[in-house]
């Protein structure tokens, strides 16, 4: 068995059934081995960046390891954005690249790049194989490492000659899971019981730990008023009456108000990102904090915590649930106050009653949320539409919301939707995108067509880079700079060129029919939604300001303000 065959063997042993890749010179031995393989489905994307992002979407939607493959040089460099995306959001990814033959490394050979060197900052770990016999152990370790603890991308760079070298049957590396003692929760319970105004603050760590069910049980039984980060959307489910929605820069007024007023933050699986906290000095100024996370490096990183707990989230949440069951928290007044704030300051986009009125982003997303079934997967891109989805789509599960949180990668949504559709061929997957983001990976329409994936595409087209335009309007004295996209192609014709049917709508009374049409269609379909160029995402916190200083539409100003 040569090195290439050994890689496929590792995939089989770890039940990797789908990989996303693009062939080229130095990875050709692996592609040659794939010809005879029947256990792994290789998905050919049309750009390596899309391979990495599709593997990311596959991992998020399925909870399994995502795998992407590319050749050396430009293949590897094209992967980088997608791998960085996975790194920032702690997504388990295995990245395999071919490298120039061992003897040519360091000679500026054709398609040689120092992949190991240039990717150090965007991987959980990485390997450059220098001995074919090391490959089995490295593959085992890499796959385990990508998925353990705080997950992340692990990159294995393999010179072409070693892919062709026979590998001896070396024993595999099997690491025993580290046994950690169960943390003492007594102090946490004391703090929870002492708090008069506690807030449950959860993030992407819940689904990364596969703790969605335990979290929901805990959140419901403890009846703690709850806020979520962008990646934590869906954690509390649709029906939790104490969920105040997303906090932060584009969070709900209710969520930011409750955090501002609370006296205890119970942070679970979140890292206090600046988009969530706003200016740290003004964040939850009266609160003590309990921080539960898998990553020790996140504890005290940005804010000192009174109590840190590390351990298995499922066990911790179960223990907390049980401990609070006998004697519920006495926070009735606080619950009522938070509900009042939610009534007046939650996300409640009104439907436009005027049938001929232009479509607004929030009203469209509200309709989509009402029409789509609960298990629909929404893969967003980055920009205004992403925030409208975060604000106005009612998610019942965090794995139904695929969004580029940490890196903010325009072009994420379409390949991520492809990955999610491969994770479950029967699920309904919708890529909600903007005209700017869509063009960043539009070549993947060919992938959708090739595999006949029933992915639905919703392009919210305001003919500009709306989020940048919005910040230029609000914080740069309305001096628009390089945001105009009014020469966009005809997206309907473009989809049809890929043999994907498409519809165009631009009036409020067309929303329902448009959504129902694409959802009912048995195959991929694109809905082009024309929206106003002037629509903004409200509320907004100026970058660097405190969440207390939210700006909403009534305070819209053209005053010249400049952000650092």
């Amino acid at each position, binding site marked *: 068995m040569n090195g290439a065959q050994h890689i496929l063997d590792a995939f089989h042993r770890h039940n990797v059934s789908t990989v996303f890749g693009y062939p080229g010179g130095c990875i050709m031995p692996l592609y040659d081995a794939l010809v005879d393989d029947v256990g792994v489905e290789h998905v050919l994307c049309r750009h390596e960046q899309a391979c990495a992002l599709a593997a990311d979407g596959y991992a998020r939607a399925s909870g399994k390891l995502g795998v992407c493959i590319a050749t050396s040089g430009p293949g590897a460099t094209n992967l980088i954005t997608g791998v960085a995306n996975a790194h920032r959001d702690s997504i388990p990814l295995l990245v395999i690249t071919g490298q120039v033959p061992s003897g040519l490394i360091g000679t500026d050979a054709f398609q040689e790049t120092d992949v*190991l*060197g240039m990717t*150090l*900052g965007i991987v*959980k*770990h*990485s*390997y*450059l194989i*220098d001995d074919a016999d090391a490959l089995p152990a490295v593959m085992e370790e890499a796959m385990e*490492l990508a998925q353990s603890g705080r997950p992340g991308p692990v990159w294995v760079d393999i010179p072409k000659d070693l892919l062709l070298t026979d590998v001896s049957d070396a024993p595999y590396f099997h690491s025993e899971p580290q046994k950690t003692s169960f943390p003492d929760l007594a102090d946490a319970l004391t703090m929870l019981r002492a708090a008069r105004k506690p807030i449950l603050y959860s993030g992407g760590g819940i689904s990364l730990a596969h703790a969605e069910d335990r979290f929901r049980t805990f959140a419901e039984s403890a009846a703690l008023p709850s806020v979520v980060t962008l990646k934590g959307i869906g954690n509390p489910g649709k029906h939790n009456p104490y969920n105040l929605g997303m906090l932060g820069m584009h969070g709900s007024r209710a969520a930011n108000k409750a955090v501002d007023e609370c006296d205890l933050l119970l942070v679970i699986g979140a890292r206090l990102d600046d988009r969530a906290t706003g200016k740290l000095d003004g964040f939850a100024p009266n609160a003590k904090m309990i921080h539960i996370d898998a*990553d*020790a*490096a996140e*504890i*005290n*990183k940005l804010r000192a915590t009174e109590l840190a707990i590390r351990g298995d989230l499922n066990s911790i949440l179960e223990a907390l649930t049980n401990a609070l069951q006998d004697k519920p928290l006495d926070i009735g007044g606080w619950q009522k106050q938070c509900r009042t704030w939610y009534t007046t300051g939650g996300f409640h986009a009104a439907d436009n009653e005027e049938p001929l009125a232009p479509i607004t982003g929030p009203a469209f997303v509200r309709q989509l949320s009402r029409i789509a079934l609960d298990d629909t997967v929404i893969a967003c891109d980055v920009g205004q539409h992403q925030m409208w989805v975060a604000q106005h789509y009612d998610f019942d599960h965090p794995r139904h919301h695929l969004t580029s949180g940490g890196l903010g990668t325009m072009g994420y949504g379409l390949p991520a939707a492809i990955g999610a559709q491969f994770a479950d061929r029967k699920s309904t997957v919708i890529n909600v995108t903007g005209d700017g983001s869509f063009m960043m990976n539009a070549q993947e329409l060919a992938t959708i067509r090739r595999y006949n994936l029933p992915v639905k595409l919703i392009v919210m087209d305001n003919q500009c880079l709306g989020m940048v335009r919005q910040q230029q309007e609000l914080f740069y004295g309305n001096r628009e700079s390089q945001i105009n996209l009014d020469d966009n192609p005809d997206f309907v014709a473009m989809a049809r060129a890929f043999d994907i049917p498409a519809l165009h709508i631009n009036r409020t009374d067309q929303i329902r029919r448009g959504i129902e049409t694409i959802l009912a269609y048995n195959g991929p379909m694109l809905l082009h939604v024309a929206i106003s160029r002037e629509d903004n995402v409200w509320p907004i916190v100026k970058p660097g300001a405190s969440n207390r200083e939210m700006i909403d539409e009534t305070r819209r100003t053209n005053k010249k303000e400049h952000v650092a």
Partner: protein
Amino acid sequence: MKPQSQPSTPSYNINCRMSQEAAALERLCQVIRIRGFRIATMAVESAGEHLDITLTLEGTRPIAMLQSQLEKLHTVAEVALGQVSGVRVQTA
């Protein structure tokens, strides 16, 4: 030009043991740089399968934050923080 006093920059001694691997030192230095520290001195000794690295670092951020980030590296076996070696005043 009269030298200007810079804000005092704390200095730290760190001993780090990590596996011998391709890019071991680059990996270490990358984390030190991105987390806000400057390497003032660095000595490396090969010890079998390990590298023992002794560093003097300067930076204004909490050193515990860097320590936990270094400990997170898969190939780092141990990070020992020496005593703060005093405050160094830089002048231009």
